[in-house]
């Protein structure tokens, strides 16, 4: 049974300059206990997607189309009060910025207790007891509950936020770059803790990150997003062995591998598309080294290329050729030259 089914989701940001289509036609399923890693460049819509699941979009963000079935019920159609009851209890968020996600004028304990009591009739003492329990699970001393956020280190604050997300054993955890603000050693410890607890309470997880190496460690499934659309969805193991989409190939190049130390990384030239403008064809075509006329005209649908492996590319059959070429620096240099030519042509 799927815990979450996202169907043909469109999200727009209404701004003074026009409408920005942050998410267009995104669909995916999330099984009970599964963890999905959402990766992509800044502005590709991963945070928007994650926040929309909790209906936490900013005021100008509108879900203009599609549905999100959570336990069979459409979140998009729910009233404010129904969504409020879902938050933390069913869907909990581990926020991006450990530094500022706790209110500076209340103790961490009070903030945890407040969350617990917003969803149950627990007395203060009962809630405090529960807060102590989760603090223990996450590896913080109970006396820290009486601390104010400014009295704690970054790692402690991040742990406190994780503890907060776990207090009510949610069925879905949304982790929005939970460790970006931390140093690598603490990062690793905390990641492991998140996974451990997630497995313990058998909740599903949507894990957002720029860092695809983190996904390889902790998620079963990976979704690569670009320009507000899903480019590729695959089992993590399969993905890291044999990615299909040209963008995924480019992404893999851009991350250092331990085996090839000293090698200069190959980046993807160009920048993501401006989503304020009407998009024709594949979102990635501008920066894709293998694009054809078809790519510029027609938007590729998500196609199955293997077991639970979906890609949005017109040429899945040419994947072997793509993989070979994508490893070469010249291939991407070609894109750079093409981009320069195009911009000169426009001017």
């Amino acid at each position: 049974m799927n815990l979450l089914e996202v169907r043909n989701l469109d999200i727009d940001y209404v701004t003074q300059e026009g409408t920005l289509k942050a998410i267009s036609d995104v669909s995916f399923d999330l099984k009970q206990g599964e963890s999905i890693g959402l990766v992509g460049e800044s502005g590709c819509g991963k945070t928007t997607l994650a926040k929309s699941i909790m209906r936490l979009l900013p005021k100008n963000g509108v879900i203009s189309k599609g549905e999100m079935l959570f336990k069979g019920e459409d979140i998009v159609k729910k009233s404010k009060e129904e969504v409020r009851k879902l938050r933390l209890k069913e869907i909990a968020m581990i926020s991006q910025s450990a530094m500022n996600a706790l209110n500076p004028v209340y103790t961490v304990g009070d903030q945890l207790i407040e969350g617990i009591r917003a969803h149950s009739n627990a007395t203060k003492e009962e809630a405090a007891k529960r807060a102590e329990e989760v603090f223990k699970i996450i590896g913080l001393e109970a006396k820290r509950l009486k601390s104010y956020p400014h009295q704690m280190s970054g790692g402690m604050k991040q742990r406190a936020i994780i503890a907060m997300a776990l207090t009510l054993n949610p069925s879905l955890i949304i982790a929005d770059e939970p460790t970006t603000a931390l140093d690598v050693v603490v990062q690793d410890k905390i990641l492991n803790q998140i996974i451990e607890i997630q497995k313990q309470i058998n909740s599903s997880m949507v894990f957002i990150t720029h860092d695809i190496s983190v996904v390889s460690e902790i998620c079963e499934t990976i979704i690569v997003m670009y320009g507000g659309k899903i480019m590729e969805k695959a089992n993590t193991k399969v993905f890291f062995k044999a990615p299909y989409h040209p963008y995924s190939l480019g992404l893999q190049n851009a991350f250092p591998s331990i085996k090839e130390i000293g090698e200069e990384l190959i980046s993807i030239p160009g920048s993501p598309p401006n989503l304020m403008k009407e998009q024709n064809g594949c979102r990635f075509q501008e920066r894709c080294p293998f694009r054809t006329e078809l790519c510029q005209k027609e938007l590729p649908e998500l196609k199955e290329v293997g077991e639970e492996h979906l890609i949005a590319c017109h040429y899945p059959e040419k994947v072997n050729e793509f993989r070979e070429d994508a490893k070469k620096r010249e291939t991407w240099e070609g894109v750079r030259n093409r981009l320069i030519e195009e911009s000169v042509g426009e001017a």
Partner: protein
Amino acid sequence: MLKYIAKRVAIMLAMLMLVSTMIFFLFRAMPGDATAFIVDPSMPPEARELMAERYGLNDSKWVQYTIFMKDLVRLDFGNSFFYGRPVTDLIKERMPATLILMFSAMIIAYLIGVFGGAWMAWKRGSKLESAGVTFSLIFRSAPTFWVGLMMILVFSARLRWFPAQGMRTSGYSGDTFAEIFLTLDFLKHLILPSIVAGLYFIATPLLIMRNSMLEVLSEDYIEMANAKGLKEKTVLYKHAARNALLPVVTAGALFIGSAIGGQVLIEVVFSWPGLGREIVQAVTRHDYPLAQGAFIMISALMMFMNLVADILYAVLDPRISYK
């Protein structure tokens, strides 16, 4: 904390001495003759001379200054030239009327300002929000005497709901504080002037609160509070407003300090027997002791409220502590 307060009080006392000195010389530097307002111009010049001699105005500035400072440390501001009574008594008599008026105005302004400002930030971009900003700015820009007169016109002259002037109906007299101020009659007299003053003050807390709220609302902990599934009101008032309150508190504490001087125009329009009117008259009459006393009181209160604001900061924000 106590050590910090003690240090601040010591600094305050030193500053007060400095301020008193400045006030003393400022009044002496003022053009005009102090005796002119006490002695009738038709009296012979000897009478003036006698007056100047009696009040010590013929002594050198230095002698006058040392006497003034010596008295000051004993909290003796001397006798008013005009009333011939101790300044302390005069201030004591006038101050409660002003303070009650100012406090009521402030309560009106801050209650509406703080909650309204928070609410306006929440409803940013709505018509009601821009109406709120316009409303507060109109009353800040409109001359208070005009607003006062209009109020009197509507509510006293036409509707006859409230009395037009004074602090109590004539003929009534009371001696104790309770007899003077804790009566329905007094309350009726208080309403109009305090509303006019309140409307004038409202822009400060309202706009500071609104702006500070807008800043706070974009903070991550507000999103977190929402993500916890707290009720909208809880997020707005417990999490956002609590943090946005800090600058409003400072503005408020400093405001009390300046409020002791009163709103002269309002006191005049409503014939409110307050300190503000008295100070202005004392200055024009060259009533040095009364003017000096009042100004020193104002500066002392101002400094004190500054300290209160700092202490309140530490109470409201756990990140701030004084060692």
